[in-house]
């Protein structure tokens, strides 16, 4: 008799733990915010764009001219990586400039391009500096649809989904990836020096931040 | 039909111990054969060879003219009762008895009826739900016998089944076994070291010593005509008296049973002078131990004897009752 009692206690203990496991694991999953995912596009990016500089000034130190190009956030915006050559047209003359710096401000992005010119600084000041941003990718690239990029911070960022091994299957975390150098054609963003290895979090009902644990199945 | 024929069976264990040597015997159907002998003479080994639990090193076994040497126990259709009863401790009495029937996949109903039948035959129906450890020696023995009888085997083998019981139980169970043999009408092979069991139960007795058959015969033959000194000494209590003698110009052993010696108070012709050493008074008879120049003798007398220790008496063996055995080999001289 006693033996039966003990055996049933033992069995019910294990069943209880099993039940608790199911409940706890499920509940934990349910508490996590649900995210939608999307993958980067694989496509050729090609831009062909002209932008007029907002202002141009002479940098005394390096004895070069620096033009400032300003891009709105929601405008066609494309930014070449620092050190990239840009073809400029100044008063119908072509020059080659070098991207010196990229600044991300709250409402717009600024690209500073330096170039040498034979014109005087006076002439330059009044001249119209046109930059031709010309880019065609020579391979299939991983393009991020622009609607997934968040511009509320400087630099803009995307949220990627990082998968890690957890006790019951995989656990998913939000990864904040800043986009510093990128080229955009208004629809897609082509990040420079960055490989998007994880799926992109396209949307979520709740606010997200870096390191947050999320779930991908309802 | 279950006759057993054993031809030249020998069993040797690998350390060169000869348990059985050249054993040949023919057992007829429905015969009750008792193999008797001192401990270690090979009788149990012989029984196990018949059962199929041991394999003979040499020789053949036939059951009703079918060669059985390499056939395993379970196919030989024998039943065995062991000295230690060998009841299965984890089963109750019913299951113990039913074990063989279940092994042969008999139907539940058959098992029920047969077990009930046998247990009532042996008077143990009230024990059917008990476990072996709750039974007394006699009850265990009956269960073991019930287990053997419930199957309709051709041959029943009993290995010293009564050795572990007290003498009263032994006597009563002995007669029960005899009755069972009569009712069952099957071949029984019985092994014991007790000669009285052999005498009372057997149709024929086989006397074994050191793995060799010394004599085969009916109880009366063996008692009246022992083939050698060993058989003569083994049968009879008190043992046969032996003394050296000369017979037909040869030195022989003469053997005379305790009941075949006369005691006289006065000297009669050919009587041997002797002194009473001890008297065992058993009520219905007395055993008188005397000492003579030829050695000590035990004499059985009916009822009371008027002698006392230290008395001088004269003993005379009845000459027709003297058995003569060769001095060296011990074999009977007819």
């Amino acid at each position, binding site marked *: 008799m006693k033996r039966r009692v003990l055996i049933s206690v033992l069995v019910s203990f294990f069943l209880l733990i099993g039940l608790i496991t199911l409940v706890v694991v499920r509940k*934990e999953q349910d508490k996590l915010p649900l995210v939608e995912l999307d993958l980067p596009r694989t496509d050729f990016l090609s831009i062909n764009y002209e932008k007029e500089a907002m202002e141009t000034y002479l940098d005394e130190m390096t004895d070069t001219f620096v033009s400032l190009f300003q891009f709105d956030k929601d405008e066609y915006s494309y930014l070449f990586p620092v050190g990239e050559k840009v073809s400029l047209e100044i008063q119908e003359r072509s020059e080659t400039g070098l991207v010196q710096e990229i600044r991300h401000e709250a409402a717009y992005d600024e690209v500073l391009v330096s170039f040498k010119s034979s014109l005087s600084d006076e002439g330059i000041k009044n001249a119209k500096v046109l930059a031709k941003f010309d880019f065609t990718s020579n391979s299939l690239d991983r393009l991020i649809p622009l609607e997934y990029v968040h511009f509320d911070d400087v630099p803009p960022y995307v949220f990627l989904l990082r998968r890690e091994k957890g006790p019951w299957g995989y656990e998913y975390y939000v990864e904040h990836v800043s986009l510093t150098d990128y080229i955009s054609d208004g629809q897609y963003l082509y990040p420079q020096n960055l490989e998007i290895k994880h799926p992109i979090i396209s949307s979520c009902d709740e606010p997200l931040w870096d390191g947050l644990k999320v779930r991908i199945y309802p | 039909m279950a006759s057993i024929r054993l031809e030249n069976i020998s069993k040797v264990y690998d350390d060169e111990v000869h348990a059985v040597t050249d054993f040949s015997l023919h057992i007829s159907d429905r015969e009750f054969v008792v193999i008797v002998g001192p401990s270690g003479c090979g009788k149990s080994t012989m029984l196990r060879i018949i059962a199929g639990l041991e394999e003979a090193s040499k020789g053949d076994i036939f059951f009703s003219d079918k060669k059985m040497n390499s056939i395993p126990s*379970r196919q030989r259709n024998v039943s065995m009762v062991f000295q230690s009863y060998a009841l299965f401790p984890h089963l109750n009495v019913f299951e113990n008895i039913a074990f063989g029937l279940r092994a042969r996949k008999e139907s539940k109903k058959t098992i029920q009826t047969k077990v009930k039948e046998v247990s009532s035959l042996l008077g143990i129906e009230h024990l059917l739900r008990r476990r072996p450890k709750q039974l007394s020696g006699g009850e265990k023995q009956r269960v073991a016998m019930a287990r053997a009888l419930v199957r309709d085997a051709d041959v029943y083998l009993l290995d010293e089944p009564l050795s572990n019981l007290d003498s009263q139980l032994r006597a009563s169970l002995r007669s029960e076994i005899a009755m069972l043999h009569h009712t069952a009408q099957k071949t029984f092979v019985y092994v014991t070291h007790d000669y009285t069991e052999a005498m009372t139960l057997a149709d024929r007795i086989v006397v074994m010593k050191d793995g060799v058959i010394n004599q085969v015969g009916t109880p009366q033959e063996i008692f009246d005509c022992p083939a050698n000194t060993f058989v003569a000494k083994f049968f009879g209590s008190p043992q046969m008296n032996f003394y050296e003698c000369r017979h037909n110009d040869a030195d022989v052993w003469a053997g005379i049973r305790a009941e075949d010696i006369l005691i006289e108070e006065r000297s009669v012709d050919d009587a041997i002078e002797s002194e009473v050493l001890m008297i065992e008074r058993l009520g219905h008879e007395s055993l008188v131990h005397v000492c003579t120049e030829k050695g000590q003798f035990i004499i059985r007398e009916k009822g009371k004897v008027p002698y006392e220790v230290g008395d001088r008496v004269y003993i005379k063996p009845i000459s027709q009752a003297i058995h003569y055995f060769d001095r060296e080999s011990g074999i009977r001289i007819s």
Partner: protein
Amino acid sequence: MKKKHLIHTIILTLLALITLLPMLFMISNSFMSAKEAVNRYTDLVTPYNVWASEGNIHYYEVDVLPSYLSFETYVKAMNPTYLRMFWNSVLITVPILLGQLIISPLAAYGFEFITWKYKELLFFLYIIVMLLPIQLLLVPHYIAANLLHLNDTWWAIIIPAAFSPFGTFLLRQHLKGLDTTILDAARVEGENEWNVFRKVALPAMYPSLVALFALTFVECWNIVDQSIVFIKDVFNEPLSVYLARMVTAEPGKIFAAATIYMIPAILIFMLTNEYLIKGINLATGVQS
């Protein structure tokens, strides 16, 4: 006589309490809320709870009983990771138990009742392997596991343990004391060898089997050596190892976690109590 008996009882009770003290302590602490546990066992040596000081050594008061009963730690302890480790332990223990309980009786029967050449030599080797410390066997096991590509799985632990010679040894010793005539009786009654084993020898081994079950369970439930060596993935560890990890990471939950870990072992011990004693008695030949 009575006085002596009383003194003996008192001494034994005290010894028992001292032995059990860590366990009782743990159980009572598991009912504390997490904060209380943390507060008590971290270095909170204030003038209020210092009981005595000698130089740099401070003795301070510890209450055995919690001041406020709470099941909070139990709830917290049952997080998915802990539960996963619990089931890891179960999934390691059950195959080992099954393996031992199937292989050992068969092997013991073979060693005891069947005669074959080199039997005693092989049994001698079994005994030697059984007596070797587990640490010595870890290296050959590791090499073998590597060759079989089992290095990060539980099979590297399960297979050596399931074939452990201890079970065979224990059961064979028990069988030595058995009356072999019942096997003969079964054979004569018409059972083939396998049924003789199954219906007669196996039931006869039952007390030792239960003892083996209990001993193997405790050994597997507490397995640490092999799991540290063979298992690299953190989530595949059994609970015995994870518990050690937990102590440093989360001191509040450790008591509840350990109490839950202890329950199956206690239950199984209660189940197999009498048989354990019987089984070991029969194996060593000492009558109680």
